[in-house]
């Protein structure tokens, strides 16, 4: 955190100054470790073993926050008798189909409270739709709420063998301190110190926070890493409470915003799923499957209809399902990696790359570049001539002679972009806070904002339309924004106002609770509704922090409804009283009959803790006054996920796709549902291969940013970190004859790259399973050109294309490699070297 989110880390130091204990769990010793109380080195790719052992420690020692767990989680819910755990199936859950490598989650569901009670509507994908495994399930996760029975059978004594609490106990019992020692390389004494600290800092008076970044997500079990943390935090009562939570530190200025208003294939704005062919034929069918009916997702009709109205305006009417049929349909994985394979195969003809540098920044760089070379046309919008724009003249494949510029048919348009001070608009930072940026100066020359580009491109496309049926969605599209200045820049504020939404009177709405399903409201992203409340750009608010409470509600605007902490109703006990005075945050004011406190309550303001839903209630009315997790179908925190995940209702440790070690926990070595591509462009290192004996992991440096387009180009930053390097332990250096300051070549089946050697005690050799495991760390900021003041080989060329089955993120943080002294060969000899490694 001190390395990659340095200014955010000041708050950790503030906490430490007040007595908080800080543990840093990371393969490397970094600036964060230097400031922490304890650094816990770990083998990359083994975190579920550690988290699972902490869960086991909490459960077997009776350290869970019982009152919180009983009231706010699904610990007492009873799961179907059909369910089989990894304990029964040696590393698989029930429902796995080996041929399609997918799970049918039907057997993971709750047992209904009343015999024969129908499964909830929307349960198709929860209840056995294996034939739509690709289109109806994994892509849908991360959108809408997973369905579950809102009233399962419960055992408040937590003793029923099929209640979630007992399932959890059994499932995690093999995650022992010994296992942590053998799998993570963390000595038992260090584990016990961590476990004791976590337990001591949880409960009524204390909370523990977990902070993570892509070190937890870029794995073939990435989603389950986060699930493990969620289980631990729920058991300890650390969710929805001040000083608690699981904090995702996102890596880019508006990566949160890019998810909320997604340029992602599987979702529409506000996490509404994109429609799937065959399953979501009409609006009604879409809504039946889109999300859960109980909890706040129950208003999905209002969210979607308001979105369609904002896109297609008066053309969207009740009679035509508000133009629902204008939405294109998905038929499976359309993620960035399968798109690149489509470029190689010739199905994808044109590609827009906007502020991104896949030729260097995405896994399997060579595959990315072959994809670019397979295009008919490519538009690159950036502030610098990044490698993605110049691959055809200076890419590594040109150097090796695999490709010649004359043979690459890709037509390339490079359009220079405006910088962050040359345009106005909002970023959404890591805590869901929108901050408006004022424009300082006009962009130079041909530089334009991306807002300008898409607005004017849209106008031009619309001028070129035919009278054809396929053009109707474009013809009917609302595409009128006020233009400013000589360059006719569209008004970002007008776009923000459209995102916020308007009511029947044309006035800006102030809450998503005001959205209607009858077409009378418009809203471009329901979770952002309120950012333009009272016709005021709330994201532009800048009341100085020093003049506000610690929560600082008048600085920017956080979605939803300016709530700074999600699920904060859990900061009070079931009766609505703070768990303790120290940890008071939001509570029920009996006299005034409303929730109040330091933050905007994440609960209906006047819903009493005594409220119980009537039978058949839907949406928020189905959430009782004691259920804080209001987006969930049952209002509970899910220790066990009866649906919504593509690789199991509980986290299980699986080895990375490429790993030097066996899985000591189960016969099943790697995640059975992980997404593998059987492609010659991107082969894999065999697991346990002696040819690739070392763990390879990538990371960032404080002084650079991602693929380097925004940092290698800056003399200040280039001077601070001038050269690509790899970090190895003294033991590995001795084993391989690597010299500090000299050169090394790192090899995988995909590529061989060179880097300067940094021999340091910061990457420690780990002793486990009777052997020594070495890890090689490489920063990924360099590329061969990119207008960089400094250049170097690209670490991502080494990485495999193998993905998490839930969200299709690549395993960038744990793979294998070989390392040898000296510079890499060039030209044909480089290809020969890689070929030699592949053969063996």
């Amino acid at each position, binding site marked *: 955190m001190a390395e990659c*989110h340095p*200014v955010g880390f000041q708050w950790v130091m503030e906490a430490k100054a007040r007595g908080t204990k800080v543990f840093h769990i990371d393969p490397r010793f970094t600036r964060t470790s230097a400031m922490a109380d304890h650094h816990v080195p770990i083998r990359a790719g083994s975190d579920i073993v550690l988290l699972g052992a902490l869960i086991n420690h909490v459960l077997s020692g009776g350290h869970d926050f019982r009152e919180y767990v009983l009231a706010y989680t699904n610990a007492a819910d009873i799961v179907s008798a059909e369910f089989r755990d990894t304990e029964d199936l040696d590393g698989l859950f029930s429902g796995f189909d080996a041929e399609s490598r997918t799970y049918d989650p039907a057997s993971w569901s709750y047992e209904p409270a009343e015999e024969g009670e129908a499964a909830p509507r929307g349960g198709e994908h929860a209840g056995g739709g294996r034939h739509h495994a690709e289109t109806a399930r994994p892509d849908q996760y991360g959108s809408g709420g997973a369905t579950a029975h809102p009233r399962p059978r419960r055992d408040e004594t937590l003793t029923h063998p099929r209640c979630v609490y007992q399932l959890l106990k059994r499932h995690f019992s093999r995650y022992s301190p010994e296992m942590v020692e053998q799998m993570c390389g963390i000595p038992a004494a260090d584990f016990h110190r961590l476990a004791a600290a976590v337990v001591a800092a949880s409960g009524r008076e204390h909370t523990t926070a977990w902070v993570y970044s892509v070190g937890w997500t870029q794995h073939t079990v990435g989603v389950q890493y986060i699930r493990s943390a969620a289980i631990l935090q729920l058991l300890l009562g650390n969710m929805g409470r001040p000083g608690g939570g699981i904090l995702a530190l996102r890596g880019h*200025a508006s*990566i949160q*915003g*890019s998810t*909320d208003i997604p340029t992602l294939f599987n979702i529409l*704005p506000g996490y509404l799923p994109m429609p799937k062919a065959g399953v979501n*034929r009409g609006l009604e069918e879409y809504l039946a499957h889109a999300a859960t009916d109980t909890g706040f997702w129950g208003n999905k009709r209002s969210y979607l209809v308001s979105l369609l109205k904002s896109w297609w305006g008066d053309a969207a009417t009740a009679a035509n399902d508000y133009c629902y049929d*204008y*939405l*294109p*349909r998905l*038929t499976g994985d*359309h*993620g*960035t990696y399968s798109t690149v394979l489509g470029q190689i195969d010739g199905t*994808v*003809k*044109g590609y*827009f*790359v*906007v502020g991104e*540098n896949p030729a260097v*920044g995405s896994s399997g760089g060579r595959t990315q570049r072959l994809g670019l070379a397979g295009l*008919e046309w490519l538009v690159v919008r950036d*502030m610098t001539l990044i490698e993605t724009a110049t691959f055809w*003249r200076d890419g590594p494949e040109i150097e090796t002679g695999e490709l010649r510029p004359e043979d*690459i048919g890709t037509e*390339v*348009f*490079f359009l*220079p972009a405006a*910088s962050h*001070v040359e*345009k106005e*608009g*909002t970023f959404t930072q890591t805590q869901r806070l929108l*901050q408006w*940026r*004022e424009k*300082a100066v006009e962009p130079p020359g*041909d*530089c334009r*904002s*991306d*807002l300008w580009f898409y607005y004017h491109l849209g106008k*031009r*496309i619309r*001028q070129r339309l035919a009278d054809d049926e*396929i053009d109707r*969605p474009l013809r009917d599209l609302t595409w009128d924004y006020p233009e400013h200045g000589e360059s006719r820049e569209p008004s970002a504020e007008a*776009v923000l106002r459209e995102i916020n939404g308007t009511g029947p009177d044309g006035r800006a709405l102030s809450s998503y609770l005001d959205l209607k399903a009858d077409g009378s409201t418009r809203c471009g992203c329901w979770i952002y509704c309120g950012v333009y409340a009272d016709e005021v750009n709330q994201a532009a608010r*800048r009341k100085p922090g020093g003049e506000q409470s610690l929560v600082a509600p008048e*600085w920017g605007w956080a979605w939803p409804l300016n709530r700074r902490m999600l699920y904060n109703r859990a900061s009070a006990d079931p009766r609505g009283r703070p768990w303790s005075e120290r940890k008071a945050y939001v509570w029920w004011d009996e006299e005034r009959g409303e929730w109040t406190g330091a933050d905007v309550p994440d609960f209906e303001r006047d819903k009493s803790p005594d409220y119980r839903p009537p039978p058949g209630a839907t949406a928020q009315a189905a959430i009782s006054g004691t259920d804080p997790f209001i987006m969930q179908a049952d209002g509970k925190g899910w220790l066990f996920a009866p649906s919504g995940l593509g690789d199991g209702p509980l986290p299980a440790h699986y080895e990375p796709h490429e790993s030097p070690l066996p899985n000591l926990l189960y016969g099943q070595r790697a995640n059975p549902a992980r997404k593998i591509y059987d492609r010659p462009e991107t082969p894999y290192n065999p697991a346990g291969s002696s040819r690739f004996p070392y763990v390879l992991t990538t990371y960032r440096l*404080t002084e650079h940013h991602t693929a380097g387009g925004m940092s290698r180009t*800056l003399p*200040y930053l280039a001077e601070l970190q001038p050269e690509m390097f790899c970090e190895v332990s003294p033991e590995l250096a001795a084993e391989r004859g690597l010299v500090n300051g000299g050169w090394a070549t790192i090899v995988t089946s995909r590529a061989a790259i060179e880097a300067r050697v940094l021999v340091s005690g910061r990457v420690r050799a780990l002793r486990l399973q009777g052997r020594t495991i070495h890890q090689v760390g490489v920063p990924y900021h360099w590329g061969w050109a990119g207008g960089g003041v400094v250049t170097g080989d690209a670490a991502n060329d080494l990485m495999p294309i193998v993905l998490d089955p839930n969200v*299709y*993120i690549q395993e960038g943080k744990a793979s294998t490699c070989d390392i040898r002294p000296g510079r890499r060969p060039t030209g044909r000899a480089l290809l020969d070297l890689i070929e030699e490694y592949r053969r063996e």
Partner: protein
Amino acid sequence: MGAREWAGRWPVLRQLAGQDPRRDAARSARTDALVPRTATADSVARSVCPYCAVGCGQLVYVKDGKVTQIEGDPDSPISRGRLCPKGSASKQLVTRPGRVTEVLYRRPHGTGWERLDLERAMDMIADRVVETRRRTWEQTCEGEQVRRTLGIASLGGATLDNEENYLMKKLYTAMGAVQIENQARI
């Protein structure tokens, strides 16, 4: 100013005379006349750092239509005026001399860049989109309506503004392009 007074202002003499060279004795007439760029700015824009997602507040100082300085915003409850090396260097992102400010074009099989007028480039891109979309249009897939094109894809960075992402998703969806992706998955 008399000679004696002038010599008295000469830092070296004062330092030789035993005054602490790290303090006032280091000052010269020139340093006295210096004022920070932040004091002479024509305007100050309130902005946000474009690198990581901490979202540190920035104050962008402008003089004669040029960015002269970027500082941390002390009012921000997130950053309290601080910026890390990247945030502190961000002025160079805007003002560095090597920044490309013109449209470049590489024709199929070409070996070099050519200049292209921005308006012309926009027209050419719009032509490509319309033609490719029509050529690769898929009304149905395995008998089910899909109403889309798999011929056009997009990958955006996560420094895009919300408003930009919104127009992108809106336009692409209306076009029927579904392979719309972002750094957020990577």
